[in-house]
């Protein structure tokens, strides 16, 4: 008999239009001392199952069948039993540490309250236990920090506080719902290490829900793969990752960017189950003719020279305090040559987005110059010439849900830049252009008359790419273009980008925090930390023989799936 036994769990959501089956016939076990991962893409039902175990499913969801047994006690749908179990036997960790803690209460109050709810300790004892807990989760100087408020902790520290709260009443089962998704990769590594230690030290049963295969590879003993509410495969992590049986699982594993070598294209699964690297690019001759694909010159295209950017807060009375200013970039320099794929890697706050904004003129640098083909981009005297060059630099963004205007039809979104740059172009030409573009990105002509909300994340990114290509740019900046996408969709979009680069001779600046992805996509890479460049080298050199300490650290922390296969 396992500690947690879930059998034939069925959960449904009743909306006015239809009944959505969030989980169907889900069964699995979990024992103390093991870490079970539940992985699946968005909409697979993994979070719903986790919430069901503590009976906190968002309405209008309901458990309509099956059993959940904790330590041989049946507790599905039983609010009375669960009220006692929550916190005491089961600890839950949510995804976003920013919003998980009540901003108005000190850490001490939140900890003591939780402890006193379940354990019979007086205030002093509870306080001491709280300090010990903070120390256990790795917070330095806990006696002092316990009197602080949540907003005084950084993201990673806050998640540690959340973990402390979850284990405060000595539970036996911990459920962590995407515990590291909002965190930087180095912090992610520390938090996962902490969870692993706690599992061993306290003999916990731990369930981690995630969409990140790297987390699964590094942390879990067993894994369940879910899709559309059903379990498609479960078993030991090493086995599933090295020898997936089901199609869904195969496609998942195949889409993960390898960390140890560079591949040409991501392999995708075709409907019959076989592997294919078939691209979705159908460039007809007419498109190539219209596009007037340029010859590659391999000359220097972009020169980013000694750029420093300092942000300061605004007020009517300009205060000259140094504290308010944020130095986003500090004397950053690099060059991009035509036809290459240049990668920019860094964690959040490193300044990579600022670089993108400076190149696209959304933000002006404080010092330094940016030259595009010998033209200074920020020189006010060059305004007229500058406008002509605007169309040659384009960008695609990270969030597919906010990068398209929800009130515009797809065809208008793509047509807008065309109309702006070719004033006086006739309707027919616009229509042909738009048709070509939607073909290039592999979507149907019918999509043109629809609105963005009718499409999935991956499809929206394709529309964004179509819009970016509308002005025939020479430099395409990709700012974390696939970070918000599921891993199999990511593979498709990255393949598309590679195809486009090959066929249209694009120069790409690829920005990401995800090292394996950058390895696949780029020839040269720059590593950025706190607004400063650490090193710039060819991709293979960077991964095989890194020189800077920070690069070495990042490579160390990178989850390597191949290592466990």
């Amino acid at each position: 008999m396992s500690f947690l036994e879930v059998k034939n769990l069925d959960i449904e959501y009743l909306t006015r239009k239809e009944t959505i089956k969030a989980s169907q016939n889900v069964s699995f076990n979990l024992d103390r001392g093991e870490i079970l991962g539940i992985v699946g893409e968005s909409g697979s039902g993994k979070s719903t199952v986790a919430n069901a175990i503590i009976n906190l499913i968002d309405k209008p969801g309901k458990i309509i069948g099956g059993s959940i047994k904790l330590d041989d006690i049946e507790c599905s749908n039983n609010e009375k039993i669960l009220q006692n179990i929550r916190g005491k036997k089961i600890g839950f960790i949510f995804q976003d540490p920013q919003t998980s803690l009540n901003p108005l209460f000190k850490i001490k109050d939140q900890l003591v309250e939780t402890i006193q709810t379940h354990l019979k300790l007086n205030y002093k004892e509870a306080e001491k236990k709280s300090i010990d807990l903070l120390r256990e989760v790795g917070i330095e100087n806990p006696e002092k920090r316990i009197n602080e408020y949540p907003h005084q902790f950084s993201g990673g520290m806050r998640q540690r506080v959340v973990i402390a709260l979850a284990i405060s009443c000595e539970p036996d089962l911990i459920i962590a719902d995407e515990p590291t998704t909002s965190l930087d990769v180095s912090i992610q590594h520390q938090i996962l290490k902490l969870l692993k230690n706690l599992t061993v030290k306290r003999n916990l049963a731990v369930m981690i829900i995630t969409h990140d295969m790297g987390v699964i590879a590094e942390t879990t003993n067993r894994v369940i793969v879910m899709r559309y509410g059903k379990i498609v495969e479960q078993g030991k992590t090493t086995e599933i990752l090295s020898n997936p049986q089901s199609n869904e699982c195969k496609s998942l594993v195949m889409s993960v960017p390898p960390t140890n070598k560079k591949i040409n294209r991501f392999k995708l699964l075709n409907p019959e189950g076989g592997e294919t690297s078939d691209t979705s690019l159908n460039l007809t001759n007419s498109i190539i003719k219209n596009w007037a694909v340029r010859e590659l010159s391999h000359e220097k295209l972009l020169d980013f020279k000694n750029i420093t950017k300092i942000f300061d807060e605004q007020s009517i009375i300009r205060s000259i305090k140094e504290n308010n200013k944020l130095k986003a970039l500090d004397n950053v320099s690099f060059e991009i040559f035509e036809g290459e794929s240049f990668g920019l890697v860094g964690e959040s706050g490193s300044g990579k987005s600022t670089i993108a904004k400076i190149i696209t003129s959304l933000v002006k640098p404080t010092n330094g110059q940016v030259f595009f083909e010998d033209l200074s981009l920020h020189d006010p005297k060059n305004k007229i010439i500058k406008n002509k060059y605007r169309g040659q630099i384009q960008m695609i963004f990270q969030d597919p849900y906010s990068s398209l205007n929800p009130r515009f039809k797809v065809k208008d979104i793509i047509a807008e830049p065309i109309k702006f740059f070719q004033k006086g172009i006739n309707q027919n030409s616009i229509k042909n252009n738009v048709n070509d573009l939607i073909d290039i990105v592999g979507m149907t002509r019918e999509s043109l008359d629809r609105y963005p909300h009718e499409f999935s994340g991956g499809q929206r990114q394709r529309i964004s790419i179509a819009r970016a290509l509308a002005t025939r740019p020479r430099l395409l900046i990709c700012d974390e273009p696939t970070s918000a996408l599921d891993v199999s969709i990511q593979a498709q979009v990255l393949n598309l980008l590679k195809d486009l680069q090959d066929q249209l001779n694009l120069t790409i600046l690829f920005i990401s925090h995800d090292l394996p992805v950058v390895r696949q996509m780029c020839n040269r890479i720059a590593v950025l930390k706190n607004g400063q460049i650490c090193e710039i080298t060819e991709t293979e050199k960077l991964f095989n023989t890194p020189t800077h300490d920070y690069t070495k650290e990042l490579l160390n922390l990178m989850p390597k799936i191949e290592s466990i296969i």
Partner: protein
Amino acid sequence: MISKAITKVFDNDIGYSFLKSKIAIISTIVFFIILFCSIFAELVAPYNPFDPMNISLMDAFTPPVWVEGGTLNFFLGTDQQGRDMLSTMIYGARISLIVGFASIIFAMILGVFLGVTSGYLGGRYEIIVMRITDVQLTIPSILMALLVDGIARGFISKSLHNEMSIYVLILAIGISEWPQFARVTRAATLVEKNKEYISASRIIGLSNLVIMFKHILPNILRPVLVIATIGLALAIITESTLSFLGVGVPPTTPSLGTLIRFGNNFLFSGEWWITFFPAIFLVVLALSINLLGDWMRDTLNPKLKTR
């Protein structure tokens, strides 16, 4: 094609919610009936109460038809000058609605413009606009309207008073309501401004004007609509309050508030209907608009999850 459009309107979430809420339907119907009657007052009202030929002091103080002494000619009775209550109310509603709509539209145009521009352009301009908004928001609309009204009175000579009254009133109520619109649109603009489709538009090189009014504005209309509806009810109530206090529309074109003021004098002497019916009419009008606004707010609010 019309049926296709209608099904499209009602097929989405909002339409569905509308149909499901009986209250929303009833209040909309009531509102439109009142609106219709007041627009076509000449056709709908049994008499034109402002035509001296129609009035006779002999008819004064006739009670409503179901009270002893009432006649079918004057269904809801007559006032102290012999005017038919039903007719004066319909004409009065027209004045109330005109002032209400005009002032809200004025407030909306001014407020939305300032809100969008200050939110998008930022800088000193935004800070100044926000300060003015904040300060004005602490002053209740009644006071603001009274102030503007009082000042205007000082500037306009007595003879022009009556003619200009309505415009002054519309200006006064409009000025008192614009900060609400400005605040909400600015907040919504700040949210939209950070979205990536706006960055994409800026990269293309579209001008600020185009971005503000072609891209951002259509996306922030929802909360504006809610505030406009509720603001309309508030404007009507403000106007009637000012008229009641004697500083609203001139007595020659009485609104519902003026009528209530007239009737107040006769409350103690027993002719209750002269005040009572205009009061009920006013409440029904305000209530129907508020119910509609309430429903809109609940439906259009993405933060509150549906059941």
